[in-house]
């Protein structure tokens, strides 16, 4: 049995892994009461506010939840557009 599992492993994730991943995702939203839709709104508005003042690489903006024990935080990674690329773009 163990060996068969070992062979199967590369093909598809085990039901245990799927369960863990699904739980972690759903709990982020349960704990913070931030739905995926609200998350998108937040992202759009954050991009809008920042790009009003500084040029940013909109496509590369990454806003995620991080968890430390039972504390959740919103983490934003917002790459600024470099000066040389700005010039190249003009």
């Amino acid at each position, binding site marked *: 049995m163990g060996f068969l599992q070992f062979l199967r492993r590369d093909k598809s994730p085990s039901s*245990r892994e799927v*369960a863990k991943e699904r739980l972690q995702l759903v709990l982020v939203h349960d704990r913070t009461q931030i739905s995926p839709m609200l998350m998108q709104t937040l992202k759009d508005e954050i991009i809008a506010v920042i790009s009003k003042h500084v040029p940013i690489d909109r496509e590369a903006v990454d806003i995620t939840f991080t968890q430390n024990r039972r504390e959740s935080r919103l983490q934003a990674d917002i790459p600024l557009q470099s000066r040389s690329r700005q010039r190249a773009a003009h």
Partner: protein
Amino acid sequence: MGARIITITSGKGGVGKTTATANISVALAMRGQRVIALDADIGLRNLDVVMGLENRIVYDLVDAVEGRCRVRQAMVRDKRLPELYLLPAAQTRDKTAVTPEQMVEVCEDLRSEFDFILIDSPAGIEQGFRNAITPADEAIVVTTPEVSAVRDADRIIGLIEAAEKEQARLLINRLRPEMVEREDMLNIDDVLDILAIDLLGVVPEDEQIIIATNRGRPLALENHAQAGEAFSNIARRLLGEDVPLMTIEKPSFFSRVKRLFAAS
């Protein structure tokens, strides 16, 4: 001083709160502790049958709260042990028959006479849960390694935090080692990663639990079944002993090789 008041709760129903309450109560009483198990599941009482005391009930919690008897008269003594009592729930009423404040009164009244007051909480997050958690000093959250139970446990842990209780400790119930081994069940570390609270104990799935409940003799009275031993270990940890986890997850040769590959 006086008793530690510990509420056993879960969110989801059917994960083993009542079995855990009965067995931890018995295991503590077997270690010479004065224990009372209080059934807070009004309208759906079950702690009495799990403990095997259903035929000796005269009055119940609601009778005591409403003044038809004194709290002492509603207590049923378990004759198998020197200092174990049950305070049964009412069967003919519902959760609104008692308020959280009344629960606090009853528990504070009993505190000086016991070492432990264990409260068996009903499932859910509504008034029945509030009745059970309000008097508590500590809480034990019971879950099984299944997505629905873990999700509800997370919700309950949040509510216990919001009630400014000491952080709850986790009891993982009905773990099936062979399914964990096949990677078809969340393992202990997965559940701890997800819920991020301290572990109090792990109880393996054990058909002896059903047999013990059939007979009304909690497993912890005997000490030979695996689940009975697990509950005894939990009682010892509550008493401050440092008891290592039983080895119920036996990693096979192949899972160890697999880990070796994964690590490299």
